[in-house]
């Protein structure tokens, strides 16, 4: 008997985007959506110019400015001359090549991975790339979305295609209901802790199971955003009713062709009998509020859990860098800075949830607490809903949108060996702007708990029992 083998979403979308298979075994793949920002694009436009080439499909590339934009006063010219030079280059390049640029004047500026979905540019069944590793975020919609380097940005600009190798697909299934104080961020930190920072190399991660089905789109984005931190260049969730509802009516979502679009999006879902290269299962109940202790996202533990015995050289080095010499767990570690924002957790639902839990609390006097909305839209809506007011009253500084302290290319930086509890995605040494600065990754609600306590705290204790995630569970 012949075993019938279905296809994964990855296979289906990959196959319908192949232009041809190249001599070296890679595929030449058409890219449906190309996103660019100021850090990784100027050199690519430069390379294009050098070769006398033009952008092949200018209508399929969209730009914004996010990494270097100041979040206190984003008015040009920027005080930092180098930042100004970068943004000026983006204006020039997008104008020169007829590319739509969502600049601050458009009221649509924001972190590229926040505005893509917001505008409905990100759609299921598309190939999406950007010179930025967290492009995996867009996979939440059932797109194949991945980061590329600058030479590849050049390739996409010039040809709207890439030479790229097909990945294997690992399904990561999370069944059950997430517990109190457990958010998409905790889920992905748990997965990375279990599978390692390079466990996903060579794979696309397909996230599924009832816990994922229950997640709202913004929680799914948090999940896929960090697939790359586990080594998987792509993370995705099969599109479903929630995906369609999110997209309906968005500026760039199909309108007249809505039904046709829905049919395509439904058709690309992984078949029930799809053939996966690997399958890993987790029980939702097992996942607890999780945070990092070290200098990569897999160096993670549950809140309150004892720190591991530092055996390897790299663990010892990480513990030393983080000043963990005489602590047994992360609970109670004093905090200098609290940062809520980034393409991982800087969306409206994140801010809304933080506002919900911090009502009646005050940021501890020792802590500098920053909230940086992921986009102008998020900022405007947070203002309109009264969320920003609640946050300000609690002692948070609510700033203008951008990447900000996620990687501190703008003026928001750690000083010396300050410790920052952060809702971002990377805790690499020196990531937040000081070569000895320390980053502890966690969910926005856990950041808030630390901000009001002045030290790392269990959000379930800081904000009371029965803390339910309002956007991850049903």
């Amino acid at each position, binding site marked *: 008997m012949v075993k019938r083998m279905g296809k994964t979403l990855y296979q289906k979308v990959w196959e319908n*985007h*192949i*232009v*041809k298979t*190249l*001599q*070296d*075994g*890679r595929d*030449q793949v*058409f890219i*449906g959506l190309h996103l660019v920002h100021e*850090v990784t694009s*100027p*050199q690519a436009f*430069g390379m294009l110019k050098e070769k006398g080439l033009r952008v*092949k499909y200018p209508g399929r590339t969209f730009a914004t400015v996010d990494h*270097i934009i100041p979040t206190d006063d984003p008015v040009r010219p920027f005080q930092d001359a*180098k930042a100004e030079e*970068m943004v000026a*280059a983006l204006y020039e390049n997008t104008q020169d090549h007829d590319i739509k640029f969502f600049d601050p004047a458009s009221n649509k500026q924001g972190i590229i991975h926040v505005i893509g979905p917001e505008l409905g540019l990100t*759609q299921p*069944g*598309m190939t999406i790339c950007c010179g*930025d590793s967290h*492009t995996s975020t867009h996979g939440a919609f059932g797109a194949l979305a*991945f980061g*590329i*380097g*600058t*030479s590849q940005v050049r*390739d996409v600009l*010039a*040809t709207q*295609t890439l*030479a*790229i190798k097909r990945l294997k697909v690992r399904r990561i299934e999370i069944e059950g209901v997430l517990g109190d104080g457990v958010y998409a961020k905790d889920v992905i930190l748990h997965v990375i802790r279990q599978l390692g920072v*390079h466990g996903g*190399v*060579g794979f696309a991660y397909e996230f599924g199971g009832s816990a994922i089905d229950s997640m709202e789109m913004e929680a799914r984005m948090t999940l896929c955003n960090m697939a790359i931190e586990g*080594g998987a*260049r792509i993370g995705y969730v099969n599109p479903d009713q929630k995906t369609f509802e999110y997209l309906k009516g968005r500026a*760039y979502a*199909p309108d007249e*062709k809505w039904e*046709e679009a829905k049919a*395509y999006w439904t058709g690309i879902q992984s078949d029930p009998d799809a053939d996966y290269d690997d399958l890993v299962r987790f029980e939702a109940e097992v996942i607890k509020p999780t945070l990092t202790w070290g200098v*990569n996202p897999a160096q993670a533990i549950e809140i309150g859990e004892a720190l591991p015995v530092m055996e390897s*050289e*790299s663990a010892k*080095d990480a513990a030393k860098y983080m000043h963990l010499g005489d602590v047994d767990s992360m609970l109670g570690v004093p905090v200098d800075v609290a940062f809520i924002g980034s393409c991982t957790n800087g969306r409206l639902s994140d801010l809304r949830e933080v506002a919900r839990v911090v009502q009646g609390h005050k940021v501890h006097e020792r802590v500098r607490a920053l909230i940086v909305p992921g986009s102008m839209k998020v900022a405007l809506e947070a203002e309109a809903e009264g969320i920003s007011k609640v946050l300000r009253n609690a002692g948070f500084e609510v700033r203008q949108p951008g990447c900000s302290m996620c*990687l*501190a*290319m703008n003026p928001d930086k750690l000083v010396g060996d300050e410790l920052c509890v952060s809702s971002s995605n*990377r805790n*690499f*040494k*020196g*990531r937040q702007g000081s*070569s000895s600065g320390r980053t502890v990754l966690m969910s926005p609600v856990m950041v808030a708990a630390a901000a009001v306590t002045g030290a790392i705290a269990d959000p379930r204790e800081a904000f009371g029992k029965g803390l339910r995630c309002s956007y991850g569970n049903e």
Partner: protein
Amino acid sequence: MAMSETKRVGRGVFIPGNNLDTDQITPARYLKCVTFDELSGTLFYDERFDSDGNEKEHPINDPRFNGAGVLLVGKNFGCGSSREHAPQAIKRCGFKAIVGESFAEIFQGNCTALGVLCVTASQPTIEKLAKGIEMAPSAEIEIDIETQRVSSLGAEYKCRIDSSVRDAFLRGAWDPLDTLLSAGAEIDATFKQLPYSGWV
């Protein structure tokens, strides 16, 4: 197109440690540039210099390894960002090849597109190569792309080069742009058959 080649040779330098990420290779504050021209000085900056700019002990600062062309590294080298600044800094410091236990995928792709060859070898092999250059810093390391062998100081070891990377270097076609451009009409045809081509 670049020249086809079967070998890469250079003196080595060993950077110990696993998971050396792109932020360590080029700290984010050095990404503020519109060209890649001035990146070479930023390579491993925070590992090489203290906050006052004084040199720390680091293999790249060690004069014995000046002019090395082959980097020896550990596991998951180049994880983190997809920015090409890290491979660009490596290339602009004169490195032609990296021999490591494993590489982050985007990083390896970026290196290939720049003509920096990524080769994987076992941990014992890298340890032996590292010991060799420690004793004899001027010894050359030779990577045979065709046979997938790396040799130094008279000893030869097996190594692995990703098949498409190997093919690209052997044909001198590590930069894919010309190949991609030549598919012009087929690209348009692929786009036209995509359901979403007519939606906006």
